[in-house]
Structure formats: structure tokens, C-alpha cells
């Protein structure tokens, strides 16, 4: 069953030098319970697409539905159905982990008691139990990322959008995060829409890949199918496959890719 679908989704920005077509018409069909890797070189339109699908940015063309809610007609329904983890995170360093989790639950209309209970549940699930009463500033990079994800899971969304979730993490924390993403899919049936610069991450995690370039979908399929079609064999690297599709390398990440 399709949980995210877009048809001709487009976004044009106005600038002093004229219109800039960041996304020129993207057609997507993301199946419920899959991990979708959304890849592309710098400026390909990944972040713009993600921001449109999470209601942060209004499309200038096309249509989209997320978990049955039309993006234009029912943005509040989309917000209730999805969780979003931005690359920069989104927690206040001066506030405790517990307070952030409880407030986030309340923003999703949980009662105070239920929000407190949910904070404990999430802390157990994401290995944050001993950190609940610490200020967010005192967390390590990996702990902070797990908290970001916990915040996005407060309301048990069916769809989770992750924007570069492992950028800047050490190899151990990356591996933990990959396990967590797989558990979300396997144990909760969560659909994960993931953008990443790390091709090894996309290869290891994603059930299916969509490669965008210059604002349109350039290729899509399972990692194996793409390697076969564009890299020549199943043994081809995703890096070579990506280059064959786009003619360019993936956008550089803040930190060098780390093999895990």
C-alpha cells in the first residue's frame, strides 16, 4: 500500500535573478513499511522535497498525499501522521531531556500524564533512560540524535522523515542508529524516508532508492536493481552506480563518510 505519493511535485523559488526551479516535477510512490533512501547531488532538490512533504514549504506545482492526507488541503493531518528529524536536530540545549519529550508529547495533544508516560517509554526504547533528567547540552552526539528521533516518534507516526540523520556521528553511533531505523521498520511498521550523503548508509539501510537530479527523479529501484542497471553488475559499488546515473558524485557531507 502506498503511504506517500506525489505527482509532478514542484517548487520554484523567486530570486533577483529570476525564478529558480529547485524541484521540477517529482513523482514518487513510497510503500508502507519500507525504508526509502532519497539520494542526489548537491542542489538536486532533496531537501526542498523533504520540506514540502513535511509541510514546511508550500509546493508551487503538483500534488502529494502523506498517509492519506492531501498536502495542500490537509497540512495539519500530514503533521499528525508524520515525524520529522531535521539535520540540525531541534532540541533546546538548556532544557532537560524529560521536559523536551513531555512538551513534545503535549504538542501532539497527549495529556500531561500520557506525555510523561510516553517520555519514559521512548527513553527505554531509545536507550535514554539514564539521561532523562540531564540537560540536552550534556548529551553526546549519538545521544542527541537518539533524542531527536525520540521527539519525532512521540505520537507514533506512521511515516518518519530523516534528513541526514548520521552526519557527524562516530561509527559506533551510526551503527546504533542504523539498528534503530531497522527496528522501527521491523517492529512498528514505520515507513522511513531517509536522505543521506553516505552511499554506504543508503546501501545498508534502504529497501529502495530514489535518485534525484536537477529537480526530477533520475532513477529508482532496489539498490541491487540500480547496481545491475547502471553499474553493470550486482557487485558494482553504489558510488559507481550513482555516478553513472547523475554524472556527478553525491553532495559532500559535513564529515567524511565512515565505513561501519
Amino acid at each position, binding site marked *: 500500500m502506498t503511504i506517500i505519493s506525489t505527482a509532478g511535485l514542484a517548487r520554484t523559488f523567486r530570486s533577483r535573478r529570476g525564478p529558480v526551479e529547485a524541484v521540477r516535477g517529482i513523482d514518487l510512490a513510497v510503500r508502507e513499511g519500507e525504508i526509502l533512501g532519497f539520494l542526489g547531488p548537491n542542489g538536486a532538490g532533496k531537501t526542498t522535497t523533504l520540506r514540502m512533504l513535511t509541510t514546511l514549504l*508550500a509546493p508551487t506545482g503538483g500534488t502529494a498525499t502523506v498517509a492519506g492526507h492531501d498536502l495542500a488541503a490537509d497540512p*495539519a493531518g500530514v*503533521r499528525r501522521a508524520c*515525524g*520529522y528529524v*531535521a539535520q540540525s536536530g*531541534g532540541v*533546546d540545549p*538548556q532544557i532537560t531531556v524529560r521536559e523536551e519529550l513531555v*512538551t513534545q508529547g503535549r504538542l501532539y495533544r497527549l495529556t500531561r500524564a500520557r506525555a510523561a508516560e510516553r517520555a519514559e517509554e521512548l527513553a527505554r526504547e531509545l536507550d535514554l533512560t539514564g539521561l532523562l533528567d540531564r540537560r540536552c547540552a550534556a548529551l553526546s552526539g549519538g545521544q542527541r540524535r537518539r533524542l531527536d528521533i525520540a521527539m519525532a516518534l512521540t505520537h507514533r507516526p506512521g511515516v518518519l522523515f530523516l534528513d541526514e540523520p548520521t552526519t557527524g556521528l562516530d561509527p559506533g553511533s551510526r551503527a546504533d542508529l542504523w539498528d534503530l531505523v531497522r527496528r522501527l521498520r521491523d517492529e512498528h511498521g514505520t515507513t522511513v524516508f531517509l536522505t543521506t550523503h553516505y552511499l554506504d548508509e543508503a546501501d545498508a539501510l534502504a529497501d529502495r532508492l530514489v535518485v534525484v537530479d536537477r529537480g526530477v527523479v533520475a532513477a529508482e529501484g532496489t539498490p541491487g536493481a540500480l547496481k545491475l542497471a547502471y553499474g553493470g553488475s550486482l557487485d558494482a559499488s553504489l558510488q559507481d552506480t550513482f555516478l553513472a546515473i547523475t554524472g556527478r558524485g553525491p553532495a559532500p557531507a559535513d564529515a567524511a563518510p565512515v565505513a561501519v
Partner: protein
Amino acid sequence: MLLHDTALIYGRYMRQSLRSRFALLFGVLTPLLYLLFFGPLLTGLPLGGRGDSWQVLVPGLLLQLALFGASFAGFMIILEKDQGIVERMRVTPVSRLALLLGRVLREATVFVLQAVLLVLAAVAMGLRAPLPGVLIGFGFVALLTVALASLSYALAMRVRTPQEFGPTVNALTVPSMLLSGLMLPMTLGPAWLDVLSHLMPFRHLVDAVRDAYVGSYATAHVLYGALVAVGLAVLAVTVGTRVFRTAGA
């Protein structure tokens, strides 16, 4: 739902303010300095209005407190944008109006608390004003704070850095203060300056509070001041909410 959401956002930011009590006290420092070192200079001077010099100066200082404090409220949201907090809140189902109102009502609470401190200090220095007039003054401070903080947040959502934000706000607030007669009544100046100052919305607010401080409530100044304050607040909240809805677009 709007009430629930607004109360949540208000509570979150109010707790943040209560954690930094020093900021609450330092915010009132500048008007206190004016009160201590400028107020005594005016004692006995003919200021052209009714009431004594304290009844002229204190209303101006109250609105100055709101003007400078609330206009710079947007600094915090620039920081929050960098930390991803604004986006995280914007992808929740919380009403966009509540995202703004919760924040600006916190500002209004903080500035009314600071205004209370200022008036208490002024009373110790010699201010005598009727209680209803003092309460009306607090009402104007609250409305002006809601209006200016909303506009400040709207501007902060649109700019990228504090370096863009600070000079823009300064360029707007300093002339506003000078042309509104916050420190001294504009009737003391030449006619052209008095006429020009009538174009400033804050002029009407300070005239209204000065009337209230001498116990005159049913005056044209109070009526115009109230209309300007409410109109400005409604307009600013509308603009601010729209920016919270469409930021990044």
C-alpha cells in the same frame, strides 16, 4: 485547541524566562537608570502638561521599556532557527497562531513584571499616580509588547543572521523613541516636530498613559491611544502568524 496550544507554548517559554531571573532584572536596568539619573533633572521644570515631572517621565519610560525590549525579542528566534527548534515546532499540529501568541504573551508577562518594578522604584522616587491609571499603563505596555514582539519575531523569521536583524531594529526603534516624545512631551518642541510626531503610533500611546497617570481616563488621548494600541497589536499578530505559516516559502 488554540487556548491549549497557546498555553503550552507560553508555559515552555515562561519556564525558560524564570530560569534566567538575572535577565529579567537586567532588562529593567536602562529605564531604572533614566529614572535615577534623568528623572531628578526634570523636577520642577514646566513640562507643558498636567501633573508633575514624574507623571510625565514614568509613562514614557514604561513605553520605552516595551519599545526596546519587545523590538529585540526576535533575537531569540534567530537562535532557535539555528537549533532547529522552530522547524521542529512547525511540523507539529500546533496552530501557527499559538506558536506566535505563546511567545509574545511570555514577552508581555515579562515586560509587565519589569514595568511593575519600574513603577515601584518610581513611587520610591516621588511618583504619585492613581492606581487605575497605573493599571491602564500596564495594559498599554502589554499591548505594545504584543504588537512589537510579533513584528520582531516576523522580521527575525525572515532574516538569516543577528547581524542583519540588530541594525534593522535599531534603525526603526531609535527614531520611534525620539519622535514619540517618550522622554519629554513633544509639545515642548517646534510645531513641525510636534506635527511629525503625531504620525508615530507610539506618540498616541504615551499621551494616553500620561492622561491616565493624572487620573483623566475619558479623554481623546486615551481613546486614540487604545485604538492605536489594539489596531497595532491585531495587525502585528496577523503579520506574525502569516510569517510563521509561510516561513521558508
